């Protein structure tokens, strides 16, 4: 006799006792880069949300991205326009964005103008009209833009419904039709406390923009989101031809696993320097190379990347001062070929110099590149240039964001070499006026010294968090092989760190580079 199949077995009703099963709230993707991560996975399905902010923040564009990402002919999106931007003008402007899909218009995305109704009739008529269209099309997403103009319009007659009742009935209507709703409105910050709309809403997305000096800074905050954990705080947003893009404060690095350090050392490509570092840079460390202009910081960074490529470790160079061609050319003069690895996708050079970047979006560019090439080594050349490339309003965030990124990347096992330009004072040895030394595990200081009628260069390892290191101050030159530490060490000096040393060893040492003829 055949055994009954699972399908044939009588199904047991779930026992009434015990822990009840939780409802699963599906998260709807927004189609907005970075936003799903900020929201904690997406917009909760069937939620009633408000997108608020001053004009020009990107509220309408954000709503358009959401509808184009989700609407289908079977479960369309209804976009009600009221006393605000008419749909025909919206179409004129929104079609400029890359997410705009003309083939969805009419069937999957439907625009309905309610302006006359809102102007001439009372709120119950507006509610009835929305109800009629919703019943006809069974939408997945409903947008009312601009909602505040409907409820605040002095010519809209309140009639049978007052505003809170209208909002409540609208929420009930749309939720019962299983529609995820977005009400778009221009609201001021001080309205948050006493507006019943915000109390009723499941989600409240607030957009800001402010001008700082010559740059515009746009930010987003998820002020409220019922049922799931969103990333708190202000997140940078940018509006480009791709629509709104968001850059999470956490840079999408939440939950990234920390790779245990295995004690491996990475060569810098300069054997003598590796010896000074106690065998190389510990894998997953952040090394800061500090020194004045012309001391060879970029050359050293190039050698570090090239050595990684030789060992099969892909790399990223984020450069903010020199142009990529100059970088590649200089590497060539040291006998290092950076062109071939770039063509093979093992090396990417990011040249980031626009003057209104946000720190988070710059970091996102770097993170994207790291992911693309599977980078093990990262060069940031330089931190001063990086800060200069940011919009003035974002510079205050620089250290905090850098701290987050360096922490997350080194935690993932990526080894970072950052350069920073510092002045030689000839009386002191500052590591960096950025007070970013705390971000780094290791510090290498390069500087000029005056010896025997020449300006020469020396370097010293200041700090190695992972172990012991040489305490020697070593003289080096930049040759056709790049940064080269002079070996064997010839002379002993005192007061090298002041830049004006005094010989304490052989007084007649030979200069490492030829002196000018007398």
């Amino acid at each position, binding site marked *: 006799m055949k055994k009954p199949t699972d399908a044939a077995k009588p199904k047991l009703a779930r026992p009434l006792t015990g822990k009840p099963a939780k409802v699963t709230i599906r998260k709807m993707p927004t189609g907005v880069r970075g936003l799903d991560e900020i929201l904690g996975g997406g917009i909760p399905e069937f939620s009633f949300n408000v997108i608020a902010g001053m004009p020009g923040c990107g509220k309408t564009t954000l709503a358009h991205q959401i509808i184009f990402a989700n609407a289908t002919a079977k479960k369309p999106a209804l976009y009600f326009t009221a006393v605000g931007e008419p749909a025909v003008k919206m179409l004129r402007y929104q079609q400029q964005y890359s997410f705009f899909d003309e083939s969805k218009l009419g069937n999957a995305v439907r*625009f309905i*103008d309610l302006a006359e109704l809102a102007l001439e009739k009372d709120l119950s008529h507006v509610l009835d009209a929305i109800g009629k269209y919703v019943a006809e099309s069974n939408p997945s997403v409903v947008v009312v833009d601009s909602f505040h103009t409907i409820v605040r319009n002095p010519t809209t007659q309140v009639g049978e419904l007052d505003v809170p009742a209208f909002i409540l009935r609208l929420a009930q209507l749309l939720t019962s039709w299983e529609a995820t709703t977005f009400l778009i409105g221009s609201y001021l910050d001080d309205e948050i406390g006493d507006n019943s709309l915000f109390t009723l809403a499941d989600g409240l997305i607030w957009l800001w923009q402010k001008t700082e000096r010559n740059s515009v800074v746009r930010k987003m905050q998820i002020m409220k989101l019922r049922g799931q954990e969103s990333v708190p705080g202000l997140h940078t947003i940018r509006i480009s031809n791709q629509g709104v893009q968001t850059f999470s404060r956490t840079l999408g690095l939440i939950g990234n696993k920390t790779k245990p350090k295995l004690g491996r050392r990475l060569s810098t490509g300069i054997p003598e320097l590796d010896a000074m570092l106690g065998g190389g840079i510990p894998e997953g460390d952040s090394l800061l190379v500090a020194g004045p202009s012309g001391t060879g910081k970029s050359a050293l960074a190039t050698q570090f990347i090239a050595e990684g490529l030789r060992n099969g470790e892909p790399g990223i160079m984020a450069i903010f001062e020199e142009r990529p061609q100059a970088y590649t050319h200089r590497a060539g003069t040291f006998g290092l070929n950076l062109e071939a690895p770039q063509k093979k996708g093992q090396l990417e050079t990011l040249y980031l110099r626009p003057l209104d970047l946000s720190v988070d979006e710059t970091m996102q560019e770097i993170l994207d590149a790291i992911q693309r090439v599977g980078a093990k080594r990262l060069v940031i050349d330089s931190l001063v240039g990086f800060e200069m490339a940011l919009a003035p309003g974002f510079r205050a965030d620089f250290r905090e964001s850098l701290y987050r990124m360096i922490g997350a990347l080194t935690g993932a096992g990526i080894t970072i070499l950052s350069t920073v330009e510092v002045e030689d004072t000839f009386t002191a040895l500052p590591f960096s006026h950025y007070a970013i030394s705390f971000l780094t595990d290791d510090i290498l200081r390069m500087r000029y010294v005056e010896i025997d009628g020449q300006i020469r260069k020396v370097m010293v390892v200041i700090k190695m968090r992972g172990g012991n290191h040489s305490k020697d101050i070593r003289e080096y030159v930049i040759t056709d092989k790049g940064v080269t530490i002079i070996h064997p060490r010839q002379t002993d000096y005192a007061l090298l760190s002041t830049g004006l040393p005094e010989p304490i060893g052989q007084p007649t040492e030979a200069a490492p580079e030829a002196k000018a003829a007398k």
Partner: protein
Amino acid sequence: MRNLAERLIAYERTQNKITKTKTPPEISVFDRLRPQLATLMGNAGFRAILTRALVLSHEEVPWLRAMHVIADGTLVHVDERQAHGNRRKIAAGNVVLLAQLLGLLAVFIGDDLTLHLVRETWPKLPLNTLYHGKGY
């Protein structure tokens, strides 16, 4: 654009014969477009764009000066007796008016979206472009 207007009116004529509709095709073509566009831009928006198209047509079709757009977006003749004049003349005038209306739409929302709207209104009419043959 005029060629497209002629095609739309010709198509309406065929459809009206099939459905035994008595409304002249040059009128029913606007009746069909009106709800489509009014949903998108509201009645007031539709009235505004049709009125503008009417004004733009005056130079070429002087008798259209006697037409005006009423509150619900329909076109009416000021003088009811003249409204039933020379059918050929009326049809030709409406081709110009429809072409101006579609031309204005194309200026606002672009050729692709205008074509999309026309296709949505006449889904069985094969159309690949707004521009066929001569004319604006």
